[in-house]
């Protein structure tokens, strides 16, 4: 008996070291495990985030360093946005402005020495957009290419896109949106007022029938406020798409922004937008998710509507779960009434065992007859979560009875006990319930898909599947990824903020002795 401890004391120093090493090794393994796990869980999200910034999210092999997150190109996108649209964030091309873009082409001795062919081309992605054709920069601007110098066999060219004004009048410049076309052009001012638009130059008159409803334009107001006249300064373009083609043997060495598409053995570069601004460059797909999913009838953003719908649905679900699950859970845990066990067995346990698909037809028909094929029906369908009742029941059963006994000594009835004593102690359980319910509502796909029929009623999950159906299954992956990343953010925020409340309850310190 005594030999062993003495042996241990002799080796104490060694043991100390060995234990310290073990501790570090354990910490190391734990961290490694956590890093690997977070790589597995976060990796796809981060890759999706990165791909959502790309022009071609499907590119193979995928790049990790992309121009959209490179400082140099972001600042160029900003300055091009300032040149074209006097706005470094949103970019665009506005009347009266001009944009400069540089291209360098290498022409070895045996290759043609000609200048590259540079043109503007029409570009308006079709997926999910209200179909009104937007005016294209190529029909309104002038393009000039001039050589600026030569180093070795590399020649630089300076491309200038100039957008002349369509009116000779001067005055206040107002942004507006074109209204329903009639015999004359009409525009809707930012205040909601509809005015007639005067076309005072032949260039402007030539475009009268090319401009569609919802086109953004700039107008010039002249005259007194009461009988002011509005002259068309020109449409505002979101994009300035440019294409550069060189001959066989030549090579495009560099350009102000990297190209979005390369074809013809890298001899044809397309820049989908040379006036992007930072939002149009780095966050192009995110901006598209909001601006290009507009309801054709109202012109409002569908994606925004879906986000709001989802928040409303999640909020309703969480509220209902907190109210009903805590009440039912408390009743099942603490009150005694006939049939309590039967209710628990049938209403809580059995309900959880039945997959929700089984109720599909009956619930659908019921909701249809109640006229509830909408968000409220969706809410009604998941009003009381059996899992939540179970969670709250278990939690209340774990609370010390002494709390209730002391409350009843002070004269509290069952409801007061619940409301004043037990519920305030149930914070962690309620937060756990809220998080799971929020997440469940946010990611709910099956029932919303079945119940919601109108585009403006969709929640995000169903809306995102709408992005996928463009081109008969060949999705616009940039939009899908941007939408998916946006829809993941709220859940992550909720979890990060509330996870610390999971841990602790003050109840164990409430009982003395």
């Amino acid at each position, binding site marked *: 008996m005594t030999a062993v401890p003495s042996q241990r004391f002799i080796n104490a120093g060694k043991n100390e070291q060995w234990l310290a090493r073990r501790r570090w090794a354990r910490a190391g393994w734990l961290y490694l495990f956590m890093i690997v796990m977070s790589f597995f869980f976060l990796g796809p999200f981060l890759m999706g985030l990165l791909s959502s910034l790309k022009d071609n999210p499907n590119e193979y092999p995928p790049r990790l360093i992309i121009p959209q997150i490179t400082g140099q190109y972001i600042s160029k996108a900003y300055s091009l946005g300032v040149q074209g649209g006097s706005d470094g964030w949103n970019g665009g091309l506005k009347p009266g402005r001009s944009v400069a873009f540089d291209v360098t082409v290498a022409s070895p001795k045996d290759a043609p020495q000609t200048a590259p062919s540079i043109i503007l081309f029409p570009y308006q992605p079709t997926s999910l957009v209200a179909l009104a054709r937007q005016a294209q920069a190529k029909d309104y601007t002038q393009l000039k290419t001039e050589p600026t110098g030569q180093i070795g066999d590399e020649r630089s060219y300076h491309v200038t896109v100039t957008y002349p004004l369509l009116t000779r009048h001067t005055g206040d410049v107002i942004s507006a949106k074109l209204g329903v076309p009639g015999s004359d052009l009409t525009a809707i001012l930012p205040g909601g007022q509809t005015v007639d638009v005067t076309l005072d130059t032949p260039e402007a008159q030539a475009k009268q029938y090319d401009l569609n409803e919802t086109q953004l334009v700039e107008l010039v107001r002249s005259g007194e406020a009461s009988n002011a006249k509005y002259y068309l300064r020109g449409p505002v373009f979101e994009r300035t798409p440019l294409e550069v083609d060189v001959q066989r043997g030549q090579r495009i060495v560099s350009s102000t922004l990297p190209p979005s598409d390369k*074809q013809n053995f890298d001899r044809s570069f397309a820049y989908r937008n040379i006036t992007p601004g930072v939002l149009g460059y780095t966050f192009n797909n995110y901006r598209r998710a909001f601006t290009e999913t507009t309801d054709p009838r109202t012109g409002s953003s569908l994606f925004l509507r879906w986000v709001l719908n989802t928040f409303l649905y999640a909020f309703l679900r969480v509220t209902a779960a907190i109210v009903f699950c805590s009440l039912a859970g408390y009743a099942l845990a603490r009150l005694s009434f006939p049939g309590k066990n039967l209710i628990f067995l049938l209403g809580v346990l059995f309900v959880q065992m039945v997959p929700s698909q089984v109720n599909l037809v009956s619930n659908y028909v019921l909701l249809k*007859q109640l006229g509830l094929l909408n968000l409220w029906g969706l809410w009604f369908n998941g009003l009381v979560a059996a899992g939540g009742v179970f969670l709250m029941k278990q939690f209340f059963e774990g609370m010390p009875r002494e709390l209730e006994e002391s409350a009843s000594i002070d004269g509290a009835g069952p409801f007061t006990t619940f409301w004043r004593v037990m519920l305030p102690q149930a914070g962690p359980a309620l937060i756990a319930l809220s998080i799971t319910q929020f997440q469940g509502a946010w990611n709910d796909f099956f029932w919303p898909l079945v119940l919601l029929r*109108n585009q403006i009623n969709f929640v995000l999950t*169903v809306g995102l599947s709408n992005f996928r159906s463009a081109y008969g299954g060949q999705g616009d992956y940039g939009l899908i990824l941007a939408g998916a990343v946006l829809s993941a953010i709220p859940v992550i925020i909720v979890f990060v903020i509330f996870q610390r409340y999971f841990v602790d309850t003050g109840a164990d310190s409430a009982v003395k002795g």
Partner: protein
Amino acid sequence: MRNQLMLGLLLLAAASTQAAAQTTIKINGYAGQDPAIVGDLINRFVKPALAKDKINVTYEPLQGDYNQQLTTLLAAGNAGDVFYLPAETLDGFVATGKILPLNGVVQTGPYIKSLNTAFTRGGKVYAIAKDFNTLAVEYNKDLFDEAKVPYPSNTDTWTSLQTKLTNVKKALGNDYSGICLAPDYARMGQFAFAAGWKPFDSKGKTNLLDPAFVRAFNYFTGLAKNKVGIQPSEISQDWSGGCLGTGKVAVAIEGNWIVGFLKDNAPNLKYGSALIPKDDKTGKRGNFVYTVGWAINAGTKNKAAATKVLNILTSPQVQQYVLEQGLAIPSRTSLSNNAFLKKTDAGAANSKAIFDGAADGVVRPYYFGTQGPDWIKPINTALAAVLSGQKSSADALKQAQAEMNTFQNR
């Protein structure tokens, strides 16, 4: 109690419709781009024409699997008054009795005959073709130029196209391929039609060991030899249109739907379109015609209004607008001489090849027979097995025929 409640609700509903005296016609169709397109048609053509009749029209897209969703809605009695009806799944829907026969309701004369046939069962027409698509050879002009090989043309045969593709591959090397081959009956069947194969014999059975089918199957899978043809998945794409967009594949066999895709995703790709090549032996072309029709719900409460809406949606003005916007190929024969089809830009040239494809050689609807879409599974499995080199063509076809027999005897 419940009856009283329902009665009350009904009365309320009746009162509210009376107050507005407005009929609402609901249309069900595809999701994706269609809500924007049909919404535009409704605003431009349907609403102005029906404003005085107090008919309101709404479009509700169905997410996910359209056929499945439409079945659910029809069963629940909640489907639209007017809806899209794909020709390939017509039989299942006709069997439910929920599709209104259009004989005597709508004139079918002005529409392309093969499209009417696709929607006719037992002498009754169940839908009017909304638009249609066929297949064409879409090629990347730059790759053919670089390889100094002539473009695919309307006079090509199976072998001459194969030679061209092989020459392109030979000239351009490892990073480039001749053609993208999706293991799909919908991209291979047209060759079998050209060779003289019929999908169903007089008893409704399918023979995949028919020499004509075997010859077409071997031609299609033989294009993959020496990596002249690759599967889309080999270059991280999910369809052959995506392959063409990368600029690394010379040819894709696709329909008019590729135009919008390329415009958005490969704006500087120079491409052309040619008809599907002829079989050297029979001297004929084959093609699929894919079509979706407008049908009327047999249970609609507003048959007259629904018919009006259907007639406007298939009117010459609407079809001309849809064609000129480059959205779809019209189903009316009178539009075959439309100026749009004579334009020379890539999109219009494609429309022309697609339109001509419908009337040249053996053209059959994309159709699964009475047993539904599972019919193509044995064929697709065989194509995938041979294209990926797991099986010989003979083995794969033998197994496919065995699976087909089991399926058709079910």
